[in-house]
């Protein structure tokens, strides 16, 4: 038995010594001062791994059937998609750091503020690259919804991709006046018990943040750096409110759907009267595909719902940084952004500034088909609030489980 143990430990040590070879990072540093021509040259014929959330048919369709073939044709880049978001990306980066992997599995990631925060905490992002991209000239970096992600300055560490606002969705045929504030909401769930729920994911937590801002008294209640005392005070009230109300939730609040898509399914079946989600544009595609009824409408909470931008980042150990920049630059091109905002497709608002675009392109954006069912981002503008600091989100996740789900 002793011998077996010795062999075992020997092997274990051997394993952990494997793959420790150092590789020079000089190449990557040079890239930061390289011209765009040099970057383009370096990116040809490479393979870029893109890790993204794959929970929407419309988004997957845009990526798989438009972006992937186009970058292949234009730049001879093989774009490989893999599924993963927030925690998965951070875990991968952490795992690779721990194992000293210089050439990571993933080059490019689709992230939002709390992942941005965590990735910076573990030094997982490559660095400032956005101003290198030729198409970044079309972006207005003075826009606070673009230059600030969850209250953190972006500093070119991630490139804005889409801008969305959180919207509540209802069927106008079944619900004539959906709730727009906490008092209205309390009446609504008592009149319609079992027709509301909170998905235990990013979307649900974002809804909770809006509620918390309202409990705090104003759309700006959560602005600024994370404030422990404020969080303690407001979240205590929030959990008290949720726990009092959850008897009127779906399944009496005994459980919550794991994913937003499941909540949408419940809405489509008529089990829920309200659903919600980040992409106000996704209402359109769900109506057009027959998933939601034609009488579906979307709106913002009176105290405001969160508007944010989602971003594309390059990981610190991305093997193909030049080619990744090329892909991100393409995704920021007027062509790709116009296609992305197509109301019959992904239907996601552009981050490009119309006044910076060449006139023929801005005309194309203006002339594009308008949404028939979902609200436009302009309609929601009045009730937009900025994302609170990422710690709020991380704490809400933890505490929602502790104080509500397991309660």
């Amino acid at each position, binding site marked *: 038995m002793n011998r*077996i143990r010795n*062999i*075992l430990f020997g*092997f*274990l040590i051997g*394993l952990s010594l494997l793959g420790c070879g150092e590789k020079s990072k000089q190449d990557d540093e040079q890239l930061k001062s390289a011209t765009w021509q040099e970057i383009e040259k370096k990116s040809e014929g490479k393979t870029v791994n893109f890790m993204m959330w794959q929970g929407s048919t419309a988004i997957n369709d845009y990526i798989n059937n438009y972006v992937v073939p186009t970058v292949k044709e234009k730049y001879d880049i093989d774009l490989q998609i893999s599924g993963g978001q*927030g*925690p*998965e990306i*951070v*875990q991968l980066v*952490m795992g690779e*750091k*721990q194992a000293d992997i210089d050439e990571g599995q993933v080059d490019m990631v689709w992230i939002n503020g*709390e992942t941005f925060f*965590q990735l910076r*905490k*573990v030094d997982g992002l490559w660095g400032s690259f956005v101003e290198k991209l030729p198409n970044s000239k079309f972006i207005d970096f003075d826009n606070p919804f673009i230059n600030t992600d969850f209250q953190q300055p972006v500093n070119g560490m991630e490139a804005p991709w889409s801008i969305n606002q959180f919207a509540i969705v209802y069927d106008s045929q079944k619900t004539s006046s959906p709730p727009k504030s906490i008092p209205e909401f309390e009446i609504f769930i008592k009149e319609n018990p*079992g*027709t509301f729920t909170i998905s*235990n994911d990013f979307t649900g937590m974002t809804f909770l943040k809006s509620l918390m801002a309202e409990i705090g008294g104003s759309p700006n209640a959560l602005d600024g750096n994370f404030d422990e005392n404020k969080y303690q005070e407001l979240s205590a009230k929030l959990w008290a409110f949720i726990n009092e109300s959850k008897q009127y939730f779906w*399944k009496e609040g*005994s*459980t*919550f*759907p*794991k994913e937003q898509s499941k909540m949408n*399914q*419940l809405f*489509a*079946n*008529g*089990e829920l009267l309200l659903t919600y989600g980040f992409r106000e544009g996704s209402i359109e595609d769900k109506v057009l595909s027959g998933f939601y009824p034609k009488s579906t409408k979307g709106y913002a909470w009176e105290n405001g719902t969160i508007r944010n931008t989602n971003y594309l980042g390059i990981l610190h150990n991305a093997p193909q940084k030049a080619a990744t920049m090329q892909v991100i630059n393409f995704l920021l091109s007027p062509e790709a952004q116009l296609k992305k905002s197509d109301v019959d497709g992904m239907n996601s608002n552009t981050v490009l500034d119309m006044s910076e675009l060449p006139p023929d392109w801005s005309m194309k954006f203006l002339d594009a088909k308008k949404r028939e069912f979902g609200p436009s981002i302009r309609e929601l503008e009045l009730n937009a609030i900025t994302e609170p600091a990422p710690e709020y*989100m*991380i704490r809400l*996740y*933890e505490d929602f*489980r502790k104080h509500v*789900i*397991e309660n």
Partner: protein
Amino acid sequence: MSLRIKKANIGVLFFILIGIVPFAAAFIYALLYSFGVTGVANDGFTLKFWETVIASGSFFKSLGFSVLIALVAVVISVGGALWITLKFKEQLESRFFSFIIYLPLAIPGIVTGFFTFQLFSKGGFLARISHKLGFITEASQFPDLVNDGLAFGIILSFIALIMPFFILLFLNVYKNERVEELSILAQSLGASANQIAKKIFLPILIKKTWVLIVLYFIFLLGAYEVPLILGQESPQMLSVLIIQEIKQYDLDKISEGYVVAVLYTIIVSVTAIALFLPKRKTAYAN
């Protein structure tokens, strides 16, 4: 002779490399992580993750929940399979049936979970039929059968997954152990059908298969796909809980997931030792 021993040892060495080292490595890694020794977000040996997990009770809740679900599913499956074998052994011999009863083996847990959801959810096929027949007017009136507190959906899927297997197993044992002949003998000595079932059929079948029954219980204890699709958010079955804790947002708490993983591994290993170490005849263990 010495050459032969050496050759045999190479085989054993390979066995250790493939069969034992990965398991040991995984266990040691999880152990180190649970004490905060490894992990980017950790800064050294600490007992705090163990204390948190033991104190929070969610592990024990999850363990109890998993044990209960697995136990109910195994008991119903074994009971049902015994009954079917006892009553239908002749019919199941026919050409048609002997193919049909193999079919469920082609369906994995992930598909069973998906199918159960499609059938039993409030917007599912049965709810639609109930609506058509006028039993319900709203989806929400349909009983809570998936993602439910009683784990009905999970248990049903488990039964659908393992009962066919037990039927096939019992039919085989029945044939191989000559239960038929013994029964005829007992009958000619004047035993009733009931006595034959209780004194011959059940003891032989259970005795020959109990190790496998326990093994299936352990498999269900660690099942992942089915509870992932059909479970609720709390309490969760062990594998789902472990993965959720390891893949969570709060980087400082990942170690708690490894604490649960270590506890689960210890429980499973102790069970294995208890099952296989004593000198018992385990003819049907594989």
